[in-house]
């Protein structure tokens, strides 16, 4: 009976199969939620879509979403690679703190800023290598291994701050601030920087075989090992990639506030990054990397945050609304939940 009903409705609308194929695509639900947030914004805060050019530079809430979303999205794509190996990196927020402290310290010490830029990246990569060493060489579970640096990192940042007497760690740097808050033409520099890093990472994963290797190690480590893939090296490199991406995020975040603030910089950023990966359809069971979808996930989160701020609601609601929206997206992605809703719908109709 039921199947007949279905088939007759199929003949009525010829685009039904296409629609079904679209519904099955993993990008649909995050996009639907993003659209809903934007529509609600259009009604509640019409100014959300306003764009203006000041001093030859593009301004407006939409631009702001991309602008503020850059650093979280960078952290998230690194996280996507780590999660692809069935791992997790809880230490990203702390890596930002350490890198920030190193930047402030070396600027005070008078190093050339160009050198500091590379030093900052090196520190990020070194932190990733530490995590990778614990996970890949010592076989410590990723959640515990990265917890170590998560706990220690902010303390290390504060210690580095103490090197120059614990006085005001704020600084100015034309180069670093230019990368973070500057703009090239009407486009913020950090967006261009992000695009470059994303392309680099995509190339690294998909134009070499690294992506396939990461996914096979995450999907079935035992089988990957027997097939001749260097599992340990692959896992190690995933954490190094995460450190590299987080290093760039740290440069942007630190130069943005032009100070080192190990206690509160990038607080909870590991959770946002994990959420972005999951909203993007990634599974914590590992085995798949969706870089583009992860960016979409980060974008959804940032749009939520900006919208709540603009709506004028007390900021206390921020976290709760964020949690509710994330729950909705995950429910929409759950086959069980969709099935239950559909059957409820079907019975009534």
């Amino acid at each position, binding site marked *: 009976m039921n*199947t007949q009903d279905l088939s007759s409705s199929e003949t009525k609308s010829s685009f039904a199969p296409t629609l079904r194929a679209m519904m099955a695509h993993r990008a649909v639900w995050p996009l639907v939620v993003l659209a809903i947030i934007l529509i609600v914004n259009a009604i509640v805060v019409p100014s959300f879509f306003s764009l203006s050019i000041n001093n030859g530079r593009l301004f407006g809430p939409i631009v702001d979403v991309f602008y503020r979303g850059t650093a979280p999205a960078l952290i998230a794509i690194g996280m996507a690679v780590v999660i692809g190996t069935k791992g997790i990196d809880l230490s990203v927020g702390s890596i930002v703190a350490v890198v920030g402290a190193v930047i402030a310290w070396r600027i005070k010490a008078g190093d050339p800023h160009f050198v500091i830029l590379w030093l900052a990246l090196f520190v990020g990569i070194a932190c990733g290598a530490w995590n990778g060493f614990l996970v890949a060489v010592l076989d410590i579970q990723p959640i515990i291994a990265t917890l170590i640096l998560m706990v220690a990192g902010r303390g290390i940042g504060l210690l580095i701050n103490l090197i120059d007497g614990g006085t005001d760690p704020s600084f100015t740097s034309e180069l670093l601030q230019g990368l973070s808050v500057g703009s090239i033409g009407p486009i913020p520099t950090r967006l261009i920087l992000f695009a470059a890093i994303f392309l680099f990472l995509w190339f690294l994963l998909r*134009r*070499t*075989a*690294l992506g*396939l*290797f990461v*996914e*096979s190690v995450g*999907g*079935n480590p*035992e*089988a*990957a*090992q*027997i*097939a*001749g*893939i*260097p599992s340990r090296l692959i896992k190690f490199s995933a954490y190094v990639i995460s450190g590299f991406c987080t290093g760039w995020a740290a440069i942007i975040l630190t130069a943005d506030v032009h100070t080192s603030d190990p206690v509160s910089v990038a607080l909870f950023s590991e959770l946002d990054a994990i959420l972005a990966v999951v909203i993007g359809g990634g599974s914590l069971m590992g*085995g*798949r990397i969706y870089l583009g979808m992860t960016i979409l996930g980060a974008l959804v989160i940032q749009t939520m945050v900006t919208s709540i701020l603009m709506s004028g609601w007390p900021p206390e609601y921020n976290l709760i609304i964020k949690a509710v929206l994330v729950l909705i997206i995950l429910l929409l992605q759950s086959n069980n939940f969709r099935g239950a809703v559909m059957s409820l719908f079907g019975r009534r109709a």
Partner: protein
Amino acid sequence: MAESSAYRVEMLGVSKTFPGVRALDDVNLQLRPGEVHALLGENGAGKSTLIKVLTGALKRDKGTILLDGKEIEVSSTSEAQELGISTVYQEVNLIPTLSVTKNLTLGRQPRKFGIVDWKATKKLALQRLDRLKLDIDVERPLGSYSVAIQQLIAIARALEDDTSVLVLDEPTASLDAEETALLFQIVRDLKAHGIAIVFITHFIDQVYQIADRISVLRNGRMVGTEAVADLPRLKLISMMIGREIEGIGGRPTASYFKEDSVPVIEAEGLGRSRTIAPFDLTLRAGEVVGLAGLLGSGRTETAKVVLGAIKPDSGTIKLNGKVISRLSPRASLANGIVFCPEDRKAEGLIGELSIRENIMLSLQAKRGWLNRISRAEQEKLAAEMISALAIATPDAEKPVGQLSGGNQQKVILARSLVSQPKALLLDEPTRGIDVGAHAEIVSLIRRLCSEGLALLVASSEFDELVAVSDRVAVLRDRKKVDEISGEQITRENIINSIAHR
């Protein structure tokens, strides 16, 4: 009416279609109380689908199911269980880290004031085991017992007091002869209690040992149901594969290796303590060496030590005449040695990845991560392999986890072959594979050998080793005890060698 109630279960005109595949087409299956009913068919014939329809795990498109003459509608396995239809699946669906007691009672522990009553729980567990006359320590974790005992525990869990239909899906796949005998004893006992038992297996011998009637499925259709006495083996096998076959017995007619060539693999005193005693092994291009032995004799371990998946702690190994100091799967791959594991799911396939990606894995690993194989070349190689090995799939992009067992086996073989190996280590290449594919793989082994590949074949089926091997290394109790070559390779000699040396 009187006639229909002679059956415990009747499945009439059952059909089921999956996207692109007609899995079941108007299938009838009738089970009598107190019979062992063997359900046979090649991989993908529809055995699992039929069972899943019976136990409510899948919804049928058409057809009726009668239980004791009354029409029933089951929409979940728990409903089926309540009606007295229980299933024990091929892979044991229990939790290895929990105790036997907990595994036996999970979800049905007796409670007192809402709290689990452990005393009563243990009693219940012991009762369940008692029905199978199984006397084991129920407080030990399940995983500490052998697969055979775990299988029996799974049956104990499935059996309720009112169970009238028991489905056993390849229960003997990982049991040795003695354990199988123990299982059959229990099956006969259950049969005597009037339970209708469906027995799914690939072992033809076992069917003739235990079954009363046989039903054969092919391509989703029921080919026929016969009493065992009316169905000679040859007829049964031709029913299963749909064509007359010649036996796979006999010896290879030609040899393709040269005695004086540099061996691809030359192991001397290679071993690993507590895993496999030091052994010598030589494998030349164009040669097939069999590894024979009973379950647990160290066949898999021998192959894995040669590969480096188990690190040897004694002896030396030369690959292509070159001493390898740090042996690993990676070093082996670089020297053209690849391994096809017995346990496809755990050690072979990456279930999330597509067939194409799974096939490319070893070749890509060999070339290194920087030297990516282009998409076009990947597609070409995958398509070649899919047609060469007759892998049944609509396209190469399907996740490999969705293929049937035999096809998954072929994907792993394809992965090895694509990497252009010099030597192939095959661990139970025909396990869980039906008769037709069995003969296919045996002839494939000889063909690869004639093309100059060296093969090491570990198998528990001695006839298969007799049919393919130039030499057979015999293992017993994790030790190589003998090596037989040429005309000396017969089933009897292998068995003698295991028994007497």
